[in-house]
């Protein structure tokens, strides 16, 4: 078994284990009627690692929907964009807050191999070249914060699936951690 497969399987195992612990299953197909939503939407979120912490529903546990599509990074590099939302998001415009928006620079037809990316803030560090990965928590239209932490992509194939896991922290120190899975829309995007 190659390292890529081992990585993928280990993350799938971990994701499945933790979802199972929460009484959820990893969906293998879109939960929404085909064509109802552009590119998207499956499930996928479940918190782990903090399920036993304070009572009440965690913010990330409310992001039950995931959408993946082509888009742009903040500096206009072509990108895979992932939206984690409370309600289904059709991919047009921007979803209703709260939501998590993830951007990962990549070319339109690129399949991204399994990888864990460190999220960067708005400003890039020229001494650290490589793929741009950012995530922001949008709690209200004018309340947006860029997150630090990591993003793990298990798969990211245009026209197929995007799945993975995020482990992020807000500037105020609040930690959000969950998995996601979505259809990856190949609808074209332009940047700049």
């Amino acid at each position, binding site marked *: 078994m190659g390292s890529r497969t081992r990585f993928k399987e280990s993350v799938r195992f971990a994701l499945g284990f933790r979802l199972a612990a929460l009484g959820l299953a990893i969906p293998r197909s879109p939960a929404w009627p085909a064509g109802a939503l552009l590119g998207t939407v499956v499930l996928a979120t479940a918190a782990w690692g903090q399920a036993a912490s304070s009572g009440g529903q965690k913010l990330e546990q409310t992001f039950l929907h995931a959408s993946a599509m082509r888009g742009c990074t*903040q500096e*206009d*590099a072509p990108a895979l964009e992932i939206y984690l939302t409370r309600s289904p998001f059709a991919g047009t415009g921007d979803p209703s807050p709260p939501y998590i928006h993830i951007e990962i620079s990549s070319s339109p037809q690129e399949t991204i191999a399994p990888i864990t990316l460190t999220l960067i803030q*708005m*400003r890039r560090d*020229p001494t650290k070249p490589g793929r741009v990965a950012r995530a922001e928590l949008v709690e209200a239209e004018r309340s*947006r914060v860029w997150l630090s932490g990591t993003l793990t992509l298990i798969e990211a194939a245009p026209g197929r699936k995007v799945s993975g896991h995020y482990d992020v922290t807000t500037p105020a120190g609040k930690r959000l951690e969950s998995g996601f899975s979505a259809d990856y829309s190949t609808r074209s*995007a*332009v940047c*700049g």
Partner: protein
Amino acid sequence: MRDLRTVSAAAALIMMGATAASAAPQCYTSYGGTKPNKLYLYFPPASDPGYPEFGTSIGLPPTSPAHAFNIADLTSYTGSAADLRNGIYDAVADTYCEFNVQVIQTTTAPPATFPNRNTVAVTTDNATALGLFGLAQNVDTGDPTAVDFAYVWGATYQGQYGGAGGALNGANSTLERWARALGGTAAHEGGHNYGLGHPDGLPLAAGEDPLVHHIMATGSHYSGEDRAGYRRHFSDHEYSVLASNVGLSVQTVWNWDFVNPNAETATKVQMDILSTQASLAVSGSYNGNESPWVNPTVGASLGTQAFKGVTYNRFQVTWSTGHAWDGHVPGGPGPSPGVSGQVAGGASFHVGTGFSGVDYNLPNPIIITNVTLFDASNTALALHPRNVAFDSGALDAADGVFKVQAFNVAGPPLRLDLVRVQLLPRLLTIDAMVAGSKRMLDVRNLPFSPFGAAKSVVARPQTLEKDQAVAIPIARLSDKRQVVQRITADDCARDDRLKGRDTTNCKPGITVSLFPATTTYLTATVTDPSAKYWDAKAKKYVTGPLTSHAFLQFVGRHPDLNKNGVDDYIDILTQKSKDANRDGIPDEVQRKR
């Protein structure tokens, strides 16, 4: 045409290298052409290996060498390269017109002459396969980076929209449409380098025009027609952030409705002005049909004068260039025949101008002390229009209230009847600063909405005796700012100038819109209850109430009572300063009082 932006081909020669811009808009808010932030539109005539690389590091096509700007790459474009360069320049210069940003067109690499340089290489490079029109070096939140770069892949427009039926093909392939498309991308990438991100393109104020008319939303929001068919502009939110980051180049805009109280016809009006500045510049003037004059001039300092314990430089602003007009202001005395350059005895008239070069670290930056009318022989007429002088506001560190002072400088008792204030997200055109204006219009004559309704800030008429002043409260330091953006320590730690540290001014924490707003619009009615004036209908001098109106707009500022170089609002939000009584004044400043 009442648009204040004038086109002056003669004045538009901007000599950078071998390039001269023609037919460029000469923004009325220009600091006389010395805006400190330079936005270079660099059209390389050939491949330039000296241009910085910031694309390949994230898997994009290289930005170095910068591809040439070669219209042969734009196969559906049929005009000349020079026309397209100038058209792009026009679009970008117009977009940044009111801001403290001078747009410069060049075909040679920009020199290091100016410390604040934002260079956008406008090329005919092609990244159609990526759907990539432009790339900024960074989103420079708060704009701490003095030197930054961006890149435009112009031929991506050919690839995306130049084909049959495309937004830039056939009859759609006009100079104007190509210029809007490429200019829009250049303005967008320049905006990133001034600290605007894609999220700044999303908020829309009530009644604001559609998002696709604006600059900064992510590219997929805009269709080819959105890009080519409309000259996009900054939204209210984008405008507020940009104004906070780079400033507005006009600082006060004044309009007045006066009455000529004399029987004689006036052919010139002159205002005596006090300013702490060594020199003053007129930044555009009211040229509408309520004024007999246009294009006022301001001379050199006439010496100094003490006022309220402060020594000011004296200036005179003069209106004498004739202009066809209506002969009166709506609702005012008149009409007179409306002869160009003349105001008949007893008739009302309107004049207005903007000023730049005002230092807002000092209170009372401009005080208008007297208004004098002259006849055709250049003799001062005996009776003067009534005027209450306003400064453009100062913070009272005792109570955290931002107050504008009104002064009766040199006349008989005057009554302030009605003073109203509106906080605005963008600069209100001077042409809309008139009594009968129904809508808020910006300098492009685009409507916009103020932040809330106008509020009356003087509860009851107040009489000002000679030399008396009254403080008019406008806003409180504790008032919430319209825009609040967070900058992280990581954002400031980067060495992203490509060569050397360039973030020394970066302040981790929060950046906020100007206080009390991007601009503040104040209107006042001033009455001399016992004025002697010429009653044109009765054809005799009478004594009774004579009313003038003042319309004042001034730009916001970043309050810094603790003088640490950071807006006090940020100090308090980030808990660098305490504010126990929540009045918006850092406690360390209050303790010193």
